[in-house]
């Protein structure tokens, strides 16, 4: 990423880079609209700078139970919503 952590508003190239990280294709129009909106939103989020450091100790308790095998989804059920399957497996796009 080109911008440093103190950088101000994002530019359309940065928005497209973030979209690539998030695996979301964007049209040029969307990228431009988002650039403008993100400037407002991120400026607003900057006020988090005013928040003091805060030690929090969440109450955590271990939740344990016996590791007994139970019935789960069948292979057929697990595959029923997949747009493409082959020999009982999910079928995805080619890796490269």
């Amino acid at each position, binding site marked *: 990423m080109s911008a440093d952590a103190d950088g101000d508003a994002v530019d359309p190239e940065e928005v497209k880079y973030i979209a*690539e990280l998030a695996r979301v294709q964007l049209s040029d129009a969307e990228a431009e609209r988002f650039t403008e909106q993100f400037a407002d939103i991120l400026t607003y989020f900057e006020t988090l700078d005013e928040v003091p450091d805060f030690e929090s100790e969440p109450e955590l308790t271990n939740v344990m139970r016996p590791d007994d095998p139970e019935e789960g989804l069948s292979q057929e059920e*697990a595959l029923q919503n997949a747009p493409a399957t082959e020999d009982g497996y999910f079928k995805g*796009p080619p890796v490269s």
Partner: protein
Amino acid sequence: MSEYNGYITAEPIAGAEAGPLASERVAVKDNISTAGVRTTCGSAMLESYVPPYDATVIERLNEAGATITGKTNMDEFGMGTTTETSAFGPVENPAALGRVPGGSSGGSAAVVAAGDADMALGTDTGGSVRCPAAFCGVVGIKPTYGLVSRHGLVAYANSLEQIGPIAPAVEDAARLLDVIAGPDERDATTREAGAESAYAAAADGDVAGTEIGVPTQLLEGADEAVVERFWAAIDELEAQGADYHEVELPSLEHAVEAYYMIAMSEASSNLARFDGVRYGPATESDSEGDWNDAFAAVREAGFGEEVKRRILLGTYALSAGYQDKYYRKAQDARAWVKRDFDEALKEADVLASPTMPVPPFERGESLSDPLTMYLADANTVPVNLANLPAISVPAGETDAGAPVGIQFIGPAFGEEQIVRVGSALA
């Protein structure tokens, strides 16, 4: 289909013959899994997704004898305050025509307000049960984090969300909460609390001696007509024997940005699963590029604009160099909000505020400006950050005929307190 577009799928599911909800028609938000009945989350991405299993709350509704009326319309994946971001079209507010029903559980509140269901389940990540309850003039409860199982709820922001009831009266909402509350071994964040609950019995309207704290930060900037209704409701509680005092909670100034930072970050991770392989529209297998391009194309087509906006902002906040600046500071703010509430609740039985600082928006009003929509959540999001329970109860209408809600916030697992105070009004 109702004329106000409250349901995405109006397919009834029969429950057991007898049980505490045997005579009730219960609508269910469409992000809660129903075996054999499609569950879309208001998204084109899941337009034809049919869950192979029931959410725990659905099993409990079935056992309690409820008849499920169908799956209600919602902001896509719960991301919105108006129920206008649904891929299945916006919902009208049956209690205030021309205005939004609130969101993201707008369909659930609308079908209850219109009388097409007796009760409904919504989900509340940052106000999504309480906001539509307030805007539609009905009651909504956001339970303490860990009271209700999230097994089978399609996740948006796991650390913040709870399933909660919506009904015309406090006692009915509490009866529905009694059915769904309690531990579930399929959700390790549930606690023993709620196993033997009797929330409905707490709806006795007895507020004599109740001390109410009013956080001044949650009245600042609120619409005048809303503030007027709020104080009228407090006056009514005073007349019934309650007392109130004002309290300053400085951390609340940062609640909205902390909430959105955390919710968007969790969303960017949770929604990574929608890639068109296990569910969703088919990927283009003949694409020239690699699988990343195929996934990116499916996600471009399947997600609406608000969902993309939040995934991108969450990805940005979690990307290298920005985590300390945004995400960790948001966690600090969350801990601060929690401490402020805990302190305030030592001096008060419940805290009160307007549920929403504004009356319901006109339809289409806020869509073009996402930040304005986020800021409308100022009074509801602090409760989710602090994992506390809260109830929204009708507090009359503005002169223009728009419903106003008052919110009562209780201590963790203090559902009985908020039900009792709420029942003094509705």
